[in-house]
């Protein structure tokens, strides 16, 4: 299978990569770039655990073919914290007890970031819509909604 060369930016770092085309963005991030913060759940677009930002918009990385990120900008959950200092949205998730097993958390954070980047003061309904593509088996969602609503950060860094 012919490899494809792509130029891309992941977490504001430039990469030139030679990749097999039959790779998803999710496997590229986790297996080739070692960015395992993005989680692999259903791989069919249902759970949202694999959510990353592509050109600022939340997408399921399991449904993006890796060569498609040529020339595009990807931001993953690793970009939120600076060193050991958590991003305020991450702090807010902890403070609101919104992280139980934590499997959904990276995806939730990225969907929340997309929302807050475009709308610093969302209503509860807007928050619920924004995370409607992210499943959580543990929390019952209310803590997550509260964490996003009461994050005292706007505009978000990242």
């Amino acid at each position, binding site marked *: 299978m012919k490899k494809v060369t792509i130029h891309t930016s992941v977490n504001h770092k430039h990469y030139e990569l030679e990749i097999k085309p039959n790779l*998803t963005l999710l496997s590229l991030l986790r297996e080739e770039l070692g960015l395992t913060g993005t989680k692999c759940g259903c791989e069919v*677009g249902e759970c949202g655990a694999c959510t990353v930002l*592509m050109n600022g918009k939340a997408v*399921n990385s399991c*449904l*993006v073919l890796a060569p498609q990120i*040529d020339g595009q900008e990807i931001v993953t959950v690793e970009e939120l914290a600076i060193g050991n200092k958590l991003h305020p949205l991450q702090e807010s998730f902890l403070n609101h007890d919104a992280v139980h097993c934590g499997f959904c958390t990276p995806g939730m954070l990225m*969907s929340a970031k997309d929302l807050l980047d475009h709308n610093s003061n969302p209503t509860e309904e807007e928050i619920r819509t924004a995370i*409607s*593509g992210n499943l959580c088996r543990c929390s019952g969602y209310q803590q997550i909604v509260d964490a996003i609503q009461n994050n005292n950060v706007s505009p978000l860094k990242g």
Partner: protein
Amino acid sequence: MKQFEYFSPKNVVETCALLKEFENDAQILAGGTDVLIELRKSSVKPPRAIIDINRLNELKGITETESEIIIKPLTTHTELGSSSSIKKHARLLHIAAHVIGSPQIRNRGTIGGNIMNAAACADTVPPLMALDATVKLLSVNGERIVPIIDFFIKPYQTIAIKNELLMEIRFPKLLDSMKSMFLKLGRRNALAISRLSVAAILRKSDSGLIQEVRIVPGAAFPKWQRMTEAEKILVGQKPSKELFIETGKRVSEAMISFTGRRWSTEYKEPVIAVLVRRALETCQ
């Protein structure tokens, strides 16, 4: 995932040439929300070439003329849902765009992919059919324009041949006197019987009588169609709850006459009737 060669042509001419070269062995890739799932299924024979059309800027964007709306196939559901032209001149399509999948799916999935994939539950299709849309197809053999009402054969099958590219979707703007609605029940992956939708357009005269009506159910028939028999009983009448209930009944009778009575009918029969009534009542 299966093996294939990946191409990302830069213009339409190159794309058509590639599609011709690989004939039945090529698959066009737009947002990928249907294609990637197919590529991962072990039961499906993979294409030899994946042709990513995302570099084709001429396939992006929504424009309007005095009388028409023109949507290019790479328009995502998010873009469709946030377009002021669509909201103003095709409200039912605006609503449909908002209820597709999740934000992540709407950010990637395109209207072109929705039409070409032709799933029975494709949510943009009933509105486009009610809007009397046409689609333009292109291949090395030339261009053709087809009314969307003639485009589908059955679920997952259209009259487009494998190497044809969908170029644009076009329909007349709704007049100010035409009110519209799209209602949907159930999620795509929910048990199939719970998926039903209705697109409706209703035009009233100044005196309040119904002048024109178009009803297209989604996921109810083996093939999408206008409910011409049911529509007839409304024209020239004053809108009323009884009349809308009667119309709903007619649609569900039409559905049963097509699909026969099966195990899901007990659920679908009353639900489609209620959806039709509510869609007509809430046209605005």
